[in-house]
């Protein structure tokens, strides 16, 4: 008598009802152990992990990681809150910095990390600091929560797009729709240049411009509290 997933559940509920199986399991059996290795989502797994992982000395926990968890536990803000319009002077300064800033383009679905491939969209990002200065931001860069991200896009053709923010453990948040024109331009809506305030953000934040044709470009930054 070997284990199967159905018999395993029955056994866990009433092990005393399976004396032959107990006798069998007292000796190594590769077939039964295969079933035990494959049977997921039982309390059995959690209990085994808790006991086995408690043997080793503990590593250090990180405060930034907990801040990310706290941020994710907070209710999401309405989409309009972090989007602000910056003035013309800001837009001009933005152009100076973004002309040399790196871009990142992808075509995979939002929420799935993938290999970068050529796409008709490009997005350059800069952090605007409280003193009014700007700094180009690349993928993986650390950015202060007091900063505001501003954007410039490259499009081959005119198309509709959406600006999306992605945070680990949360569904992507659509910040708003924009109409892109061919060429390199500041990302703007009817009210002015669009920007994303990082106030209240902690940890990894991805910002993506997603075209109606499925192309996308964006950057992921790490926000320091």
């Amino acid at each position, binding site marked *: 008598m070997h284990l199967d997933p159905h018999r395993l559940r029955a056994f866990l509920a009433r092990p*005393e009802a399976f004396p032959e199986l*107990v006798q069998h399991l007292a000796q*190594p059996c590769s077939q039964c152990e295969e079933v035990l290795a494959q049977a997921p989502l039982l*309390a059995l797994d*959690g209990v085994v992990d808790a006991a086995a992982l408690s043997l080793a000395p503990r590593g250090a*926990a990180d405060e930034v990681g907990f801040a990310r968890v706290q941020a994710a536990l907070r209710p999401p803000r309405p989409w309009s809150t972090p989007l602000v319009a910056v003035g013309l002077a800001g837009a001009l300064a933005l152009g100076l910095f973004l002309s040399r800033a790196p871009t990142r383009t992808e075509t995979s679905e939002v929420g799935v990390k993938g290999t970068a491939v050529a796409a008709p969209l490009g997005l350059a990002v800069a952090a605007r600091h409280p003193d009014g200065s700007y700094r180009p931001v690349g993928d993986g860069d650390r950015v202060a929560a007091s900063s505001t991200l501003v954007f410039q896009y490259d499009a081959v053709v005119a198309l509709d797009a959406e600006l999306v923010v992605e945070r680990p*453990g949360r569904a992507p948040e659509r910040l708003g729709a924009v109409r892109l024109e061919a060429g390199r331009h500041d990302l703007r809506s009817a009210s002015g240049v669009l920007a994303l305030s990082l106030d209240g953000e902690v940890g990894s934040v991805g910002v993506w411009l997603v075209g109606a044709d499925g192309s996308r470009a964006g950057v992921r930054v790490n926000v320091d509290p």
Partner: protein
Amino acid sequence: MSDELHRTVAAARGGEPDALRELYRRCRPLVVRLLDGLGSFTPDEVDDVAQETFVRAFKSLSSLRSDAHFVPWLLTIARNRGLSSLSKRAGARRALEELRLESWEQLDGSAEALQLELDAATVRELIAGLPAGPEKETVQLFYVEGQLSARQIAERLGVGKSAVTMRLERFRARIKRELLVRLAQRRRH
């Protein structure tokens, strides 16, 4: 689980932010270690899945019937999130079924009995009783010494990371088999 951790879980359930922080501080290393042994995650992916795990657990803390079950419950969530993430990455047609947290303790009706039967000392005995060989060496490095990542263990032993993952899974299956026998023997007496 220690009384101190038990009290911390109770306080976290009551919404105390410091208790959540303390649970995170104590349990994150376990979650990270579990994920490291599960598959080929990058450090960034481990951070992401660990964060998802804690967010999901803290949001569902009220559904946990017994504070004493917190650690195995949390690690079950971590394992499920990790396997789901690997499954999605592999392009599987269907992600793993979502774990129904509210029913964790009813999944086999024996969480408490299982915990009574298995502690660190028992696992240590089982490791000591393994025949000398690659599996014992792998398990010793990962679970007992706990300093090297699964990838580093693979490099040291001159095997692929998947071989390390398989050896760890095989060992876990051995522990489960032993646990089932102990559970049955206790019920009989």
